[in-house]
């Protein structure tokens, strides 16, 4: 992996910028001239992780391509809060069609670019977890299978947030949603359900797949930038906390995302041509309970009787740590 080795500049290289680093070593988000692809005035809730993740990712893609980007957006919060007609927050060419067809529309845009001879303009498709792992999954799999020249960005907030927090196939076990209430013998979402779309993407053996988190900007920017070095189908799945849907404090968005990563519940890895090639090591190991406790959707786990389910979640994290090699010192 070509991740920059961490050098010690007062804070290492974990902060967004750093006056002690050479300008080309700073993050995209540190630049005064960053694209700000999703600009101010959007209507996302306070502390929205999706708004943050989208700006992080698209700005990085903008730098990687010299600003030549078209984005296709699935229906969902990101689309709704950024473009209440006639206003838009997007500083890039941007198109919205339907909830389930972003991948297919993007495939079409890519084909059009190729036909026009303007395939230096790169195509991005983006959507929420519902639009990606559920209704849009067929279109997505087709885009992968045909190896269409599209980068698909999934902003995973683990439910259908735009319509009022319904369960998706990315909703984690035990999470309370509007459709998986915290009631009965097994409160919240059922264990053993759902699907892991990043691994399904890897199984398609497309050129590049990665997971990323708003809690690790440098890792996220590296992955989006790396994705733009490939042609063909690429997939980056970004973990973006939703304060409203998760019942977390708006100020804690990054803290919550960080705890997901540092506990092992959300493993960060990348895969090239169907092989996992690297994982981002946990720097300060956190118990899963510290992640769960920050969110009201998991409050029932901390009631009497929640112990077994808590232990189950901890076991999931530990399995991830082994499976993805999340412990140890960097690459």
């Amino acid at each position, binding site marked *: 992996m070509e991740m920059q080795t961490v050098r010690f500049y007062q804070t290492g290289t*974990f902060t967004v*910028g750093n006056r002690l680093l050479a300008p080309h070593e700073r*993050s995209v988000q540190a630049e005064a001239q960053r694209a700000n692809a999703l600009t101010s005035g959007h209507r996302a809730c306070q502390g929205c992780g999706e708004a943050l993740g989208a700006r992080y990712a698209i700005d990085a893609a903008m730098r990687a391509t010299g600003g030549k980007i078209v984005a296709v957006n699935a229906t969902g919060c990101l689309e709704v809060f950024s473009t209440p007609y006639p206003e838009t927050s997007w500083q890039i060419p941007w198109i919205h069609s339907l909830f389930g067809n972003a991948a297919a529309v993007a495939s079409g845009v890519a084909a059009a670019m190729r036909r026009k001879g303007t395939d230096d303009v790169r195509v991005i498709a983006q959507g929420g977890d519902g639009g990606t792992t559920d209704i849009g999954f067929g279109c997505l799999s087709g885009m992968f299978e045909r190896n269409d020249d599209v980068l698909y960005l999934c902003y995973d907030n683990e439910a259908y947030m735009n319509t009022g927090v319904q369960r998706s196939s990315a909703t984690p076990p035990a999470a309370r949603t509007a459709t998986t209430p915290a009631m009965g013998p097994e409160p919240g979402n059922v264990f053993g359900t759902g699907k892991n779309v990043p691994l399904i993407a890897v199984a398609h053996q497309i050129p590049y797949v990665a997971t990323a988190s708003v809690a690790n900007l440098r890792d996220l920017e590296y992955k989006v930038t790396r994705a733009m070095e490939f042609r063909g189908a690429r997939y980056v799945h970004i973990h973006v906390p939703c304060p409203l849907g998760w019942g977390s404090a708006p100020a804690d968005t990054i803290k919550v995302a960080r705890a997901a990563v540092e506990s092992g519940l959300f493993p960060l890895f990348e895969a090239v041509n169907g092989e996992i090639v690297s994982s981002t090591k946990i720097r300060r190991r956190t118990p899963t309970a510290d992640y769960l406790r920050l969110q009201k959707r998991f409050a029932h786990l901390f009631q009497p009787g929640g112990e077994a389910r808590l232990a189950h979640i901890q076991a999931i994290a530990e399995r991830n740590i082994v499976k993805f090699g999340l412990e140890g010192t960097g690459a």
Partner: protein
Amino acid sequence: MDKPFAITLDVGTSLANKTGSWRTTRPVYVDRLPPCNDACPAGENVQGWLFHAEAGDYEAAWRLLVRDNPMPAVMGRVCYHPCEGACNRGTIDAAVGINSVERFLGDLAIRRGWRLDAPAESTGKRVLVVGAGPSGLSAAYHLRRAGHAVKIVEAGPAAGGMMRFGIPKYRLPRDVLDTEIRRILDIGVEIELNRKVTDVRAEREAGGFDAAFLAVGAHIGKRAYIPAGAAARIVDAVSVLRGMEGEEKPMLGRRVVVYGGGNTAIDVARTAKRLGATEAIIVYRRTREKMPAHDFEVEEALQEGVLIKWLSTIKNVAGEATLTVEKMALDDKGYPQPTGEFETLEADSLVLALGQDVDLSLLDGVPGLVIRDGVVEVGPNMMTGHPGIFAGGDMVPSERTVTVAVGHGKQAARHIDAWLSGGEWRPPARHEIAKAENLNPWYYADAPKTVRPMLDALRRTSTFDEVQGGLDEGNALFEARRCLSCGNCFECDNCYGVCPDNAVIKLGEGRRYRFNLDYCKGCGICASECPCGAIRMEPERN
């Protein structure tokens, strides 16, 4: 209006939507007081000078440092660095090696020949300073910088006070001390050596001084009543250490017993070792935990072969060379009590290191003074009960260290300066302290503390070469960069990066940031992700 099919409105930007109206709390940039700065008795802006050192701008770092303390190379050797005890990095791995970076800057300044800034415009006022120890030198430096004419009168043959006649060379090489003193005198401080001031009022009048600062230290070794024969060789520690500066080194013999438990006891025992004593034994009435000497000093002494008898008192000296020592035991309250168990120790000399008293004879007959427990009371403005006579350092009630003495000199200088123009100096309001819980330590990389090299064991007992080495440029830079910049923005761009609403405006290098309250929704992510605790959320008014 010519619009495409089904389009009725012009496309607009979301910038028209001022989401700032959603806010119930607002972020505010603050400067919190770093605990190192708070703990520094000399009032150094530690975090401030480390900030420059981190960027490799050592001269800027040194210049900021000497605004408060003109002797970094001395401090980097003898200061007990309470800053490091308070340092927030201690809660993560180990405190920043502030003291070693300070020494690095001090030594570099000596190597590069950096000079102190020229004083301000002359004020026409004259101030007398009595005593050229750290307190007197510090006051003289700060008074001179403010534009006053300063004259130091010093009883000894050279300036430095206990830094020269107490602290041994193996901890503070004299060329370092000489250079830093010379640099202070070079900004135009007058000094008269070898003259003891016997009557401060007369001195003040004769010289036409508008004010006086007294810093005569504490030089009279305390005695304890120990029955002893006429032939017994009993000396006091301060005289021994002072003797080390003369031509004839003190004769202590091969078996030396030191009585006391402070840093003077340690220094004199280590000196005896170096002078050739085969045995140097410290006798102390309490336990190691209770010893006023610092743990690292005790450790270094033990490494050099000094022996320590804890919980022991000396009862008498029988004959020429036999001490009777009684074992003590701690009572319920932790006080040592005699046990009636005795043993004897052979000693060619007994050195008393039981603390020092102040020689206050120069103040005889001065009205208004309050003297309590042998030291002179001063007000918060460092003035004694007699108008125009200020005092500091070991002669006033406080901890007795070089750093405290330097701090007193600086404080007194500020108050004297104000007093001379008929005003009063009020210290600026202190910021709230940046505590560990204000920080977000995830952003700081793991980095172990850099350890300073120590002289090899043989040379530590046979020579007076300096025991502790300094850092070189590579590891001094590393050490400086371990600083977390507690409570003070260091422009890491985190707030600018993490705002989901682009509501942070980056003003450019050295100018920090501004919040764009038109769009800030008040989520507070910037405040919780600020590594150094320089943002606070405040309730929105109305």
